């Protein structure tokens, strides 16, 4: 048992740890995270609070359903690019049902009829094609990401027919409104989780980083846990087949 007071920074274990954390620009990322927290506290959270105060959850659900429905073309494109025929079929059925019976997408009738909602984006598509995530990246306002997912976001917005249309007819207010309402909707849907998480975490930044990666991994594998569909260098979660019996930690267990 070594009792060294501080960890040397160049041994094998440290390098492995750094590789798992995969956050080479952590000081910068933390700075942007603090900035985002400031923006959230000053603008996003109060506005979302107002939104929650004014509208009952039924109306907020309708807003969410509507935003979901108009995202269909992008989800469908990514279903197809990933070769997911069944999912593409579900996406089409959802759009047909929710745009008609669901009254322009305000109601999610499709889920009740067995066509469950799923999300796909170009970041996930690239992951399925074998593109690694790259280092962790905290984007201003947009939050946790990585180079692959950040590029994916740009591609998704270029693929979006509503954006293309708005651009063609000079109606910039359309994508702007959609982005603002979409942001409020997202913040609304994680309201309680973020409140709880912020209260109970001892390193909020690290908690968000871990959750973001695990959640993306889950989305990429479509919840199947299939290793082949996981992002190639997601070292942090890939390495834990049997975490409590890992090789070096022989002191673990009774």
């Amino acid at each position: 048992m070594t009792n060294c007071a501080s960890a040397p920074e160049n041994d094998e274990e440290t390098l492995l740890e750094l590789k798992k954390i995969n956050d080479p620009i952590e000081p910068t990322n933390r700075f942007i995270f603090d900035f985002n927290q400031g923006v959230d506290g000053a603008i996003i959270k109060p506005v979302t609070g107002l939104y929650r105060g004014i509208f009952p959850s039924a109306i907020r659900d309708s807003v969410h359903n509507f935003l979901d429905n108009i995202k269909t073309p992008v989800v469908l494109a990514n279903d197809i690019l990933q070769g997911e025929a069944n999912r593409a079929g579900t996406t089409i059925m959802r759009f047909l049902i929710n745009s008609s019976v669901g009254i322009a997408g305000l109601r999610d009738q499709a889920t009740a009829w067995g066509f469950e909602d799923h999300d796909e984006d170009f970041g996930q598509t690239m992951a399925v094609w074998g593109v690694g995530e790259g280092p962790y990246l905290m984007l201003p306002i947009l939050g946790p990401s990585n180079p692959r997912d950040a590029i994916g976001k740009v591609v998704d917005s270029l693929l979006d027919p509503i954006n293309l249309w708005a651009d063609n007819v000079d109606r910039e207010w359309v994508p702007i409104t959609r982005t603002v309402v979409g942001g409020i909707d997202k913040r609304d849907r994680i309201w309680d989780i973020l409140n709880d998480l912020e209260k109970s975490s001892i390193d909020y930044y690290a908690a968000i980083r871990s959750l973001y990666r695990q959640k993306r991994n889950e989305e990429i594998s479509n919840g199947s846990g299939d290793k082949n569909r996981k992002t190639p260098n997601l070292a942090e979660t890939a390495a834990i087949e049997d975490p409590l019996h890992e090789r070096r930690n022989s002191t673990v267990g009774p």
Partner: protein
Amino acid sequence: MSLINRGLAAFLFTTVICFGLSVEKVHSNDFVSGAEKFITALAAKAEKSLLSEEIKPIEHQKRFRKLMLDSFDLNGVGKWVIGRYWRRSSKHERAEYLNLFEEFIVATYSKRFRGYTKAKLQINGATKRKTAAFVNSQINREGAKPIRIIWRVKLLNGEYKIADIIIEGISWIQTQRSEFISVIRNNGGKISGLIKALRKKIIYLTSEKK
């Protein structure tokens, strides 16, 4: 922030529903089906003893702690979440850390087990991978997608113990580990930094009015 999603929602929501169950001595050879029964019994017991409105907060916390100590491999998890730093810490630090880890878990989660009285856990079979059983389950909610929960269960000294809860793909111990190691790293690789942070957080959580 673009984080978001059900997975996350599920993470906190469910850590809520699920803690605790009495010790069940195991003699059965069938490890996997035993693990499944263990989780089924756990859910029933948690529902009966924690999710009733009438209990006073102090009694509630007492019951929560007991169920958790009985059904979780808390020491194993506590050790794993600080990784290699366990080996670098002194005997005294280890004891203090494990004690604080327990307090931290109780302070964080016991309150969350109040109020979610209508959720029901449905068990969907189990599989074995290496030395652990993975019990699949879901929480059904009215008008919303069910939340998928996987329980990682081990057999320690003839007793079933929970080693992880994976909610919509998000592992509880993995998340805790990322956070704890980050705190240690930012304190010069010393576990004393984590001990200090935990103590502060426990005081904050227990003094909080609700």
